[in-house]
Structures are given as structure tokens and as C-alpha cells.
């Protein structure tokens, strides 16, 4: 399979292939998987996106994808993702800190981590089902609220609109934040805190001068990850609403019409722009995380 495994026998590890090439060969399966099943489809998207509406090659669709209603969709997606990411970051940090300070009972951390694993990866459809049964028009909590006098659906609340989606998205955003930041938070509450105390600093001093500064790269990287995650989430939104106010839904809308015609490049242009946004986000996330880890190694 890889050069690692094809070498037989003990001592002679340098075969006929020069070591330099061997190194890169070892990455082949990984690179192949990513290239064929991720990069190639993305390239496909970009190729289709670089067509005009009449079928000729050009930036027409790319431009169209960020004007008018489409532009509104991007703005809305941005704002919405900022909102969900902020909510997720704040609550996620709070929960992470709560887990970090709870050393008894011992099972808290394990359970929290496992649970975060399930929920952060949960399929959108399942999540949507679940929330519908809780907060939908026929939801249990909705009924409890109305029994207490508060008609949830009196205004224009709806699981598919902004506030509703923020609540639902938090379900996977908060665990994701916990997963990403727990290690950093646990570190931060450790001996640095005591060192600060021994030097005369109280809790406020600590958080202001050491704790938060050290945590900030982790917070920022977590925020960016949540932003990216929220921006690109499709299945959940799709199951809860059939409007196309956010970019992923718009893409889905254009593409489902597209399966028949195959020439409308607008959907692909939207997808291309989304990928660009994601790339920027993830790049920034990456930088922030490297910073965070550098300090954790100290």
C-alpha cells in the first residue's frame, strides 16, 4: 500500500527509491483521497461558475452571484453566521469553563466530551426533527409556554427564521466550541492562576492580564470555526424552512432546478463564492490556532 509497508526485513531501510521520493510517496493515498473526492469536485464547481448565463466563459455568473437578491443573501448569511457564532462561542466557553472547574464527579468531563462528539456531528435532518418536536408549532415546549401564558408563535417566531435557526444551530455550535477550546481552558485555569495569586494578583487581575490574553487565540479560532460551520450548514436549514435567505439554501435551490437543465451557472457561482469565503475563514482559523498552540507548549 504505502512505501512504509512494502519494505520487508530488518535493517536495510533504504531501498532502490531515493529517500526524498519515498517521503512524498508515503503521502500519496492521503493526497489522492483528498484530491479526487474533494478538490476535483471543487474545481468542477469553479469551472462551471466561470461561465456567463448564455453559456460562454466569463465572470458573468460570478458577478451575478453577488448582486441584487444574491448579495442580500450573502449579507444575511454573514450577519446570521456572526450571530450564531457569537452565541455559540460565548455559551461554549461558559460550558467549557464549567467542565474545567468541575473535578468532582469525575465522569463529567468524559460524558461532556462524548456528548459533544455526538452533537457536533449530528446530521441536520435529525436535529431539525428533534427541534420541531420541541419548539415547533406542535412542540411540547411551545405548549408549555402557552400554558404559562406566552404564545411563542404570536409574533413572527418560527424555527426557520433567524432567531429560531440561531437556537437550533447552537445545538451543534456549542459542543463544537467545547471540543475546540476545552484543552485551552483547562490549561488556563491551572498553575498560572496560582502563580498569579502568589504574586499578589486577584481573580480580576489574572483574567485581565494572563487568562484572557492567553485564551484569546483559542477563542478567536473557535469563533472562526463556528462561523464557517454556520455559514455553510445546509441540511438543518433545509429541513426547517423552504425560503432561500441564506447562501447554502440558495445554492440548493438553484441546483435542484439545475439537475434538469445543466446550464445555469448561477448556482455554481454562488457555491464558488461560498467556498472562497470558507477558505478565508479557515485560513484565519488556522493562524489563530497555531498561535494558541504555541503558547500552550510553553
Amino acid at each position, binding site marked *: 500500500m504505502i512505501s512504509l509497508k512494502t519494505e520487508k526485513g530488518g535493517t536495510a531501510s533504504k531501498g532502490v527509491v531515493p529517500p526524498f521520493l519515498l517521503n512524498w510517496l508515503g503521502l500519496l493515498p492521503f493526497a489522492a483521497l483528498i484530491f479526487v473526492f474533494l478538490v476535483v469536485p471543487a474545481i468542477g464547481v469553479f469551472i462551471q461558475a466561470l461561465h456567463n448565463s448564455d453559456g460562454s466563459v466569463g465572470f458573468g455568473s460570478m458577478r451575478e452571484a453577488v448582486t441584487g437578491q444574491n448579495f442580500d443573501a450573502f449579507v444575511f448569511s454573514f450577519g446570521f453566521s456572526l450571530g450564531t457564532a457569537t452565541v455559540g462561542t460565548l455559551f461554549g466557553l461558559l460550558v467549557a469553563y464549567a467542565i474545567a472547574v468541575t473535578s468532582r464527579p469525575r465522569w463529567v468531563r468524559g460524558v461532556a466530551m462524548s456528548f459533544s462528539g455526538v452533537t457536533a456531528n449530528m446530521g441536520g435532518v435529525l436535529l431539525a426533527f428533534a427541534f420541531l418536536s420541541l419548539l415547533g408549532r406542535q412542540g411540547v415546549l411551545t405548549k408549555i409556554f402557552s400554558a404559562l401564558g406566552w404564545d411563542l408563535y404570536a409574533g413572527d417566531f418560527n424555527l426557520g427564521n433567524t432567531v429560531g435557526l440561531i437556537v437550533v444551530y447552537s445545538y451543534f455550535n456549542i459542543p463544537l466550541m467545547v471540543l475546540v477550546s476545552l484543552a485551552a481552558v483547562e490549561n488556563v485555569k491551572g498553575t498560572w492562576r*496560582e502563580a498569579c*495569586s502568589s504574586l*499578589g494578583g486577584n481573580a480580576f*487581575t489574572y483574567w485581565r*492580564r494572563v487568562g484572557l490574553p492567553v485564551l484569546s487565540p483559542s477563542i478567536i479560532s473557535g469563533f472562526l470555526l463556528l462561523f464557517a460551520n454556520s455559514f455553510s450548514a445546509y441540511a438543518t436549514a433545509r429541513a426547517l424552512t423552504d425560503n432561500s435567505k441564506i447562501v447554502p439554501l440558495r445554492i440548493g435551490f438553484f441546483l435542484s432546478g439545475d439537475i434538469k437543465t445543466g446550464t445555469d451557472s448561477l448556482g455554481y457561482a454562488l457555491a464558488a463564492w461560498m467556498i472562497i469565503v470558507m477558505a478565508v475563514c479557515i485560513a484565519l482559523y488556522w493562524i489563530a490556532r497555531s498561535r494558541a498552540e504555541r*503558547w500552550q507548549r*510553553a
Partner: protein
Amino acid sequence: MVISAMKFENVVMRFGDTTALHQFNLEVSQGELVSLLGPSGCGKTTALRLAAGFITPTSGHLSLSGKDITVVPAHRRNMGMVFQSYSLFPNLSVVGNIEFGLRTRKVAASERRKISDEMIGLVRLDGLEDRFPHQLSGGQQQRVALARALAIRPEVLLLDEPLSALDAKVRLELRDQIRRLQQSLGITTIFVTHDQEEALAISDRVAVMSSGIIEQIDTPFQIYKNPASENVARFIGAIVEIDAHVVNSHQVAVGSRQLSCIGADSQVGSEVRLMVRPEEFILSRDVVSDDCLVGTVVRTEFRGSQTLVFLSVPDVPNELSAIAAPGEAPPSVGSQLGIRLSTEFTRIAPR
């Protein structure tokens, strides 16, 4: 009456069902370096953390220069602490770390700079002021930690196994440096360690602890020469244990052989255990006399200034280690040597 710098009075520390410290009493004098020595779990770190104020004693009192500080929170005690894992603030430079305690005390910037420069000079880190912790080696980080703790001119310096995470060579250098600094500044210090060699080398007094109590507290010399209990004797330095029967006031029997031994008067007729340090044996080629043990050399360790000889002796279960006569060549493996006790030896414990 001299007021001690730091005093623990009948301190008891319980965590749930476990008692980490039982009736802990300790008085540290001004300018003294006291080591708390013992294996993991003996309570030494607990005692230190109590001193620092990170935990409150279940009962008992702590006082600093006569004032009761039992309930004073950690950040209001004027103590410097150095941790095993350095605990330097990663987002601050060396100078930033050192000045941290001064900033919390609202010292003016120019004064702060002066003090931190002085500290950097003291721990010999000149030129590294603007580096960050992740750019420093372990030894350098620990020196910054030391400077940081000393910058605030604490009343007491607390060190929690500060050398454990360092390489052997760095450990020795830093150990030296800590002691010299401590002495020149005259700062009262409590040093926690599990390395007995370290404790004996630098302390004014050593408190040997086990299972939450102090077994013995005394100068290094006394601890070594007159260990108060078998535990202490075994923990400090090398020890050879020989089970024997007291024949009369100046002889004991080990198996079929007799051994001259003084100080056994009160235990005539009883079974005892001799706890002997290697340097308290006298080796000779005389294997015929009837007042010595005879052993076969198993191996030798040449250590430059002395040679350690390991012998297998009948009726003594473990290898007996002794020091060869100075100046002579190491005895050959397989040769037989006579073993006697020097007059220095007095450690006879009942079995």
C-alpha cells in the same frame, strides 16, 4: 524570644476521607532554608500549598512573623513561589513576567525596570529580557520564575520541587544558584523535594516526612548520622540492614559468626537490626579473626575519590556495600574480605 519567620501550629489537613497532614508543627527561622523531604504522598506539597494560601487548613494555625495568616487569601500573603512546571505566563516576556508582581503592587514603571534589571542580573539572564517563555530552555525558564518570585521581596520563598523537571547538569547548577541567592539575600525559604541528596546539600535543616507527619527535623548532618527511625535511615543515604542477635554488651551474632559491636548493652539477648552506612564498615584482608563477618566481593564501583565494594555475606540477605580502604586498589571480584563495624556506628534498632 525570637519570633520565627513562619510557623505552622498543629495544622491538620483533610481532603474528604483522607488526611494529608496530621498535627503538623514547624517553625522556620528568619533566613533559614528548610527542606521538606519525602516520597510522593507524604504531605510535603500540601504543607507548601498551605503556606502559600492555595488551601486552608482543616484545623490549626499558620503565622508569618508573628501575625496569624491562617485565613489570609493567597494573593495577600507576601510570599514568592516557584513551581515545578515553571508556570511562566506565556503571553508575557521575561521582563513582563518578572515585573508582574510589581505591577500588582502598583510600583512605578521606572522603579519596576530597575528591580527587574537587578533580578535579571542576579539570575544571569542578561540579554534575554524580551524573549518569551516558549523561546527559553527549561533551566532558563526556571531562573525567570525565580527572579519573578524574588522581585517582590517576599517574606518567605516557597519552592515546589523546582528542579525535578530539569536535566541533571542544569539541576546541579540551578540548585547551587538557588542556595547562593537565598543566602546572600537572607530570605526565609521552604524547599520541597523528594531528592534526598538535594535536600542534604543545600538545607540548613531538613524535615523528613512520611504519611503526613514529620519523622525528623534536624540539620543534614544529624539526619544522616542519627536517623530517628528506620524510615528516615532508609530514605536518607545508603543503608545496609543486618539482622543480628545480641550476645553480650560488645558482641552480636550474625548467623554463625560474631561481630564486635558497641552500644548494645541494653539489648542483651534480644533480636536487633543493625542499620549501617557503607562508610561505617571497615574492610580488611583479615578473614580469620572471630569478631568479624566475612564476605565475598561481588562487584566494585570506582568513583574516583572512593571505591564502593559490594559483598555477598552469609546470613545477610542483600548485598552489603562498604567503602574500600582509601589509597588501595579496588579488591578483585571473588576475593574474601573481613568486615567490621567502626566505632562511629551506633544504630541498633530492636526487631
